[in-house]
């Protein structure tokens, strides 16, 4: 009885708070003559968005979608990069090489104790903006074109038959996965060594090479080249994009490095000793004993860091990179209703968070330790 009353009181109190907020909101918006619907999404955004071909006349909806795309670009490029750096530095802290260990801890202890926004400011104001002006870019090594407005790095260019090649590689990947599964079954049933890596990667490599030759180089590495003031080829982005990317990748990788180090150290010493007692080689010990357990420990906090990275990309607003937060900010500045705009903005980030958690949860289900 008491339980039901307590719950009713809690629900009523929450409902009351929400009702008061909603009542004030609708009342105030009406009194101020602001619309309460989402019709404003079709109105023009009213500003030019750097690094896109949207005109100020494009709708708020289009601008927001463009912002989402830019946020996703930061995530897609940044997440693999920060994982790689984080793992390298984390393992580096445990290195037997004194210099490597010291430099790695210096990196971690410096970067993770600084505000990410400060790193972004530094990367933009003290690095990107001090590059040569856009009218006279520099081209180090011949495969970078760098100015304080845009940075171009080598990218992958698609040839005429790129889509055929993508399709073939996709099918081959599926076949490789099937082969992997089949070899695992073979080992389970007969006890013969599975050689999964050899079978499936071999298939992918053979099919990949053959079709690459037959299709006459469908993908090529394209270097950015400077012709007058126009840069062609390669992968180009605004300086602000690279500033945000670099600062946040470094910041988050310092946290990932700590996770990696902690998880390797958390695998108990007895495991290593047991592996040695079984006369496993160094590689075997790492591959079959330490790393699987460390990965299991590292996964949840690493997902958290991925989510933090995606949320931190919202700081791009500070250096004028047109991510979804900056677009929302500009829309509000141009007189679009703030409550709805911020609601949409928060919805976007909730969606990103949900998608990342969902993907990683699917993956981690396989690694979960079965406990009581």
């Amino acid at each position, binding site marked *: 009885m008491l339980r039901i009353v307590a719950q009713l009181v*809690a629900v009523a109190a929450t409902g009351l708070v929400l009702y008061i907020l909603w009542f004030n909101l609708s009342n105030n918006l009406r009194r101020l003559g602001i619309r309460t619907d989402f019709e404003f999404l079709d109105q023009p955004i009213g500003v030019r968005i750097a690094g896109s071909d949207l005109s100020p006349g494009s709708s708020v909806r289009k601008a927001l979608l463009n912002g989402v795309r830019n946020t996703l670009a930061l995530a897609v490029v940044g997440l693999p990069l920060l994982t790689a750096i984080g793992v390298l530095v984390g393992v580096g802290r445990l290195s037997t090489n004194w210099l490597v260990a010291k430099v790695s801890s210096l990196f971690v202890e410096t970067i993770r104790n600084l505000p990410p926004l400060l790193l972004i400011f*530094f990367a933009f104001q003290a690095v990107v903006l001090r590059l040569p002006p856009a009218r006279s870019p520099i081209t180090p090594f011949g495969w970078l074109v760098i100015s304080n407005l845009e940075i171009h790095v080598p990218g992958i260019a698609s040839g005429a038959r790129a889509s055929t090649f993508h399709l073939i590689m996709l099918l081959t990947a599926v076949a490789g996965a099937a082969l992997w599964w089949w070899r695992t079954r073979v080992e389970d049933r007969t006890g013969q060594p599975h050689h999964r890596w050899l079978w499936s990667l071999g298939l992918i490599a053979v099919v990949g090479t053959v079709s690459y030759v037959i299709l006459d180089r469908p993908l090529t590495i394209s270097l950015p080249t400077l012709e007058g003031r126009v840069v062609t080829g390669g992968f180009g982005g605004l300086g602000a994009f690279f500033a945000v990317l670099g600062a946040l990748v470094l910041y988050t990788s310092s946290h990932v490095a700590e996770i990696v180090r902690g998880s390797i150290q958390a695998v108990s010493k007895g495991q290593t000793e047991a592996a040695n007692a079984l006369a496993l080689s160094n590689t075997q010990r790492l591959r079959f004993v330490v790393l699987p357990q460390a990965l299991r420990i590292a996964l949840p906090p690493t997902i958290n860091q991925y989510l933090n990275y995606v949320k931190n990309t919202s700081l791009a607003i500070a250096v004028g990179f047109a991510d979804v937060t900056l677009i929302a900010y500009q829309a509000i500045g141009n007189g679009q209703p703030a409550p709805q705009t911020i609601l949409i903005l928060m919805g976007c980030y909730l969606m990103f968070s949900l998608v990342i958690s969902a993907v990683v949860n699917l993956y981690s289900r396989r690694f979960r330790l079965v406990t009581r």
Partner: protein
Amino acid sequence: MATVTLPARPRTEAVLWIRKNLLSTPLNVLLTLLLGTAVGGAIIALVGFIADADFTILRVNLALFVVGGFPRDQLWRVATSLGLFGVMTGLVAGLVWSGAAARAREAGLPVPPRSSLRQIARRFWPVGLVVAVCLGLTQTLGPTISVVSALVLGVVANRIGQAVPHKWRRWMWLLALLLPIVAYLTLTMSGIGWDQWGGLQLNLFLTMAGIVFAFPLGILLALGRRSSLPAIKGISVAFIELVRGVPLITLLLLGVFALGFFLPLELRPSGVTRVLVAITLFESAYIAEVIRGGFQAVPPGQTEAAASLGLTAFQSTRSIVMPQALRATIPAMVGQFISLFKDTTLVAVVGFPDVLAGSGFANTQAAFNAQGLARITLPFVALIFWAGCYTMSREAKRLERRLGVGER
């Protein structure tokens, strides 16, 4: 001619050490060479940069970085509150020690030694370094006098805290916790409300106020999330996950641009208040998760034992679970404090003059505009944050060891 056989050259420890730690395998030789060159180059570049740099911009704008636009003729208020915080820190440290000593005496264990000056220097050198740098940049004697007197007051208060008789300790704790309120009143009594604060002072204020306001809410949310009542649990989980799923900046935008719409129009919260509401909401969700972690660290046997003693659910939570849970959360709370301290820089994005914004203001002054001086002001701000966060994170690790949290 007799041949002289030279004795084998003695391998000094240094040589052995280098062989073992720098040159053990070919890969390590390569790594040592590459990194050594890079580190050497970086050190030379850094020394050259510091030798060449002109720090006038920091000298002129030191007050801007530390207190923002606080009226310059009222700076004695800041100095006084600094002294009060010195007293509080010293008193709390002293009381903690005398408490530990009293418990040790009761248990017949050796009394823990007082921290020596060297230990304190080793623990807090980054903060000392920043203070020294700042004082080195001052043009007047005022800041040095106030820092030194705050230190002296802190030491005196520390001695008082250590020597205080047992029956007065409770009152001394109360006094120590009242001091920040006195400091707040000192700062605001002249009509300089928190809206006119800026610089590092604003960052520190937002961090402390954010934690203090968010703490009760966080406890409620954590209790709610643990509750066996589905409705209460649902509400708590929904709030926590919603807030944790969005970046702080969106909540700040909500606070700055939309908070007014959710309140009666006559009630016009001031700028910093709006930010504080956003930070409190944001932080309460994170604190709730920290406290939930603390609850999970309390073995279920404790609740069962409490129940078998006939304690009610409320009594058991209040006097058995809560004290143990909160104790276990101390290191994680320090971690949360660090991350909020770093996050307070975000207020610069929505237009508040915190210490990071101070760098921008200084760089656009007529005398310093467009000279690329961000490469001097930003590292200065970075040094402040690094010292604070690095010291706190090491203290958190130390506490973790001493409390035995996370030991299996």
